[in-house]
C-alpha cells in the first residue's frame, strides 16, 4: 500500500520535495496547455465588415415631411430625417449613452432615445438626458431618385 502525501511531522525529505516540484511543474504546464486553446477559442475571430462609405438610404418621395427612416449603414443603424421644412439630415442612430437605437419624434421635432429619455436636436446635439456626446452626422446627397447617405471623411 502506498502512503500518500507529506508526513505530518518532521522535515519533508529532499527526494519527496523533488517529486513535488516535478509534479507541480507538470501540472501547471498542463493547465496552461489546456487553458490557452480555450481562451483563444473564446475570443471571436474578426468578422469582415463592409467598409462602404455610402449607402442608398431611401427613394425620393419615400419619406414625408416631419418623418424619418432608420436604415442599415454598414453594421450599424442610421437615421434619415426629413424635417418639417423638407430638409434631409442623417445621423448615426446609435445613442451615445448606452447604444440604443434612437427614433424621430414628430411631436417634439427632436431625436429621442426611449431607453433613458435622451434627447438630441436636429443638429444631432445632445440637449437633454444622459447622452454624453452628439450623434455623428452624415452627409446626404440626392442622386436622381435616390437619397444617398455618406460618411464624412
Amino acid at each position: 500500500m502506498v502512503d500518500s502525501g507529506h508526513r505530518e511531522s518532521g522535515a519533508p525529505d529532499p527526494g519527496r520535495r523533488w517529486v513535488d516540484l516535478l509534479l507541480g511543474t507538470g501540472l501547471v504546464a498542463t493547465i496552461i496547455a489546456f487553458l490557452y486553446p480555450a481562451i483563444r477559442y473564446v475570443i471571436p475571430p474578426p468578422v469582415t465588415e463592409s467598409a462602404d462609405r455610402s449607402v442608398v438610404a431611401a427613394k425620393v418621395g419615400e419619406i414625408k415631411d416631419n418623418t424619418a427612416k432608420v436604415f442599415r449603414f454598414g453594421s450599424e443603424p442610421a437615421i434619415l430625417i426629413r424635417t418639417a421644412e423638407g430638409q434631409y439630415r442623417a445621423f448615426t442612430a446609435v445613442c451615445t449613452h448606452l447604444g440604443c437605437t434612437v427614433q424621430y419624434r414628430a411631436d417634439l421635432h427632436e431625436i429621442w432615445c426611449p431607453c433613458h429619455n435622451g434627447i438630441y436636436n436636429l443638429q444631432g446635439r445632445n440637449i437633454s438626458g444622459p447622452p454624453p456626446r452628439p450623434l455623428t452626422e452624415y452627409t446626404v446627397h440626392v442622386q436622381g431618385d435616390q437619397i444617398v447617405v455618406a460618411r464624412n471623411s
Partner: protein
Amino acid sequence: MARIYRRIMGWLDERFGAGSIEQFLRHKTVPVHRHTIWYYLGGMTLFLFIVQVLTGILLLLYYRPTADGAFESVQFIMTQVKFGWLIRSIHSWSANLMIFTAFLHMFSVYFLKAYRKPRELTWISGMLLFFIVLGFGFSGYLLPWNTLSFFATKVGTDMAGFMPVFGKWILVFLRGGKEVTGATLTRFFGFHVAVLPGLATLLLATHLLLVQRLGMSVPPSIEKKIEEGKETALSMPFFPNFLLRDIMGWYGALGVLGALAAIFPWELGTKANPFGSAPAGIRPEWYFLFMYQTLKYLPAKVLFINSELLGLLGFGLAGLVWVLVPFLDYKAGFGRLTRFFTGLGIFVIGFIVMMSWLAVR
C-alpha cells in the same frame, strides 16, 4: 496550505457540520484484489462526461441550431475560430470514447456481479444513465446537419414510428412534425443541451451517492476466497489514494484525446439536402450497428408482424431483462455462483461484437 485548509474546514464545520460530509467522503475504501482494475472505468466515464460538458459549453458559443445556419456555424468553428477544430474534434472523440468506456463499465459490473443485493438501484441508475448517453449520441449526431446525420436521424426516428399504439405520436414528437426538418434540429438541440444534461445530472448524483453510500462491491469469487482464508481482504482509502490513481488515468485519457483530435480531426461532411438521395454505404454510428444489422436480417413480415416492430419489441424486451437483471439473478445476492447469467452476458457480448463486425465487413 494544510493549516489554511483546516481553518476553512473548521469554519464551515461550525456553520453546518461540514465535518460529517468530509467523513462521508472519507469512509469509502476501495478493495484491492486482482479485479481492482475494473473499478477505474466508472471514474473514466465520468471524466469523459466532464470533458463533454466543458467542450460542449465552448461549442455553444458559436453553434446555431437552425437548418440554414447549423452546418455553416460548425464550418465556421472548424475553419475560422482559433482551436475550433480542436474543441469540436475532442467533443466528438470524447463522446465515442465515453460510450465505449460506459459499455466496458457496464459489462465489468455485470460479470463481477456488482449489481447483486444491495446494489440493485445502483445498477438501474447506471443503466438509465447508459440510455441517456446513447440519447446524447443520437441527438448530438444530427447537430452538424450534414448528409450522414440527416439520414441517420430520418431512419432512427422512422423506427420509433413502428412502436405499437404511440409510435406515430412519438415520431411527430421527436421530429417536431411529420418529416425531419429544421424543427427536428431545434428539438434535438434542446434535448442535447438541456433535457438530457438535466436528467443526466440528477441520475449521476443518484448513482454516485449510492456508490459512495454502499462502497465498492467485492466480486463473489474473491469474497469466497476471503471466506475460505485463501486471500486476505485488502483495501485502500478512496480519498486520496484511489482518486490520485484515477487522476493519473484521466491525465492519460487527456493525452489520448488530444492526440486523436490532432491526428484525426473529426470530419464535417457535406451539408444535408432534405430533397437529395441517401448516399451509398450509409450506416449508423458504431454503437447502434448491432441493432441496425439485426434488423437487416429480419424478413419484412414474420407471422403478420412487421419486422421493424418485431425488432423493436425484441430489443425492448432484451433491454428490460438487462435492466432487471439484479432481480432475476437474485440468487447471486446469497453468494451463489449463477453461471446462467454469466453465460447470458457472454452471449450478449458475442452477439453485439458479431453483428457489429458483420455490419462493417
